[in-house]
């Protein structure tokens, strides 16, 4: 229901930040996410970062997918 994409923080300026998403950059609000720094990923929706992306969890999920499909192949 909510078009949102994971974007990388490029430059922080107070409660706003430049973010990058596959070659598209934009200034967005980061007022609603705690402790983000350059290089972090956040979920962007309607001009606002609404969540932080946990990179470790992302990798774990991918590993899990791979594990599942390995199981399959076995």
């Amino acid at each position, binding site marked *: *229901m909510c078009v949102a*994409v994971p974007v990388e923080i490029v430059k922080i300026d107070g409660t706003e930040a430049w973010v990058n*998403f*596959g*070659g*598209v950059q*934009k200034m967005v609000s980061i007022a609603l996410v705690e402790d983000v720094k350059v290089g972090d990923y956040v979920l962007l929706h309607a001009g606002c970062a609404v969540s932080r992306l946990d990179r470790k969890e992302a990798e774990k999920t991918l590993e899990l997918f791979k594990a599942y499909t390995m199981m399959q192949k076995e």
Partner: protein
Amino acid sequence: MELITLAHGSGGKSSHQLIEGLFYKYFRNDILEQRNDASVLPEILGRIAVSTDSFVIHPVFFPGGDIGKLSVYGTVNDLAMSGAKPLYITAAFIIEEGFPLKDLEKIVASMSEAAKAAEVKIIAGDTKVVEAGSADQIYINTTGIGILPKDMNIGGQNAKGGDKILVSGTLGDHGTAIMALRKGFEFVTDLESDCGLLSGMIQEILQAGADIKVLRDPTRGGLAATLNEISQQSKVGMLLEEGAIPVKQAVRSLCEILGLDPLYIANEGKLLVIAAEEDAERVLAVMKNHPLGKDAAMIGTVMDSPKGQVYLKTEIGGTRILHMPAGELLPRIC
């Protein structure tokens, strides 16, 4: 800064000064020099191709081009899509009073350059100035005239089952480059409009002696609108391979953010070719060899049925209909 005023469109002195000092300066040629209500062209020995388009783009200057270049290439491309050699274009301006004269000069200079590149003469013109608030800066109509080689028969009605569908490069560049600039959006990208001249590539394709069924430039409505049109005209179906369709990373990204689909976004310098299966690889090679075709790709196949439908095989192997676009493209946020 000098501005265009209603006087420049009144048919009096200021009009003549504008025509002499600007339009003739950049467009000058023997035919325009006639200065009469109608321009007289030498006889054209063959069938004639004609196309007309008005250009209403905002902003008028954009990365990769401007309304002037666009207005020349747009019409020249449409002529070329019939297999014609473009010869002449007319240029009619509707200008909002208050438009800076120096911007008009930049546009006219750009048209002149584009006309040279396209090897067409600008043979007739018109200038109307409307009150402030009655236009968005400047609109340009161009109408083109070309000559059609004997036996040339290219058109949207000719696609047959088995034919191959090719595009000359990445899709959605123009529309997304413009959208990124839209007031209130202000996305920073290095996207550029693909605004370009396709008649050269088409000549090379035709000279390769391949059996070309359809040529078209997927402008407004993007690839989806163009293929739906052709599938209806030719009464055929089409199946595209999503994975084969070239789309730039930044175009894809902006579309993800705004909830749009690159296949519905306008292009201004992309060629769609439908060729007989046996010639398709050869055509692809010619396209890839052309400076504007390095990302050319074969993206699908024409099917005898279901008639008038375009399907897309997704990267994960699913299939969906690629509908004719409905309504204006609205970014979805929610």
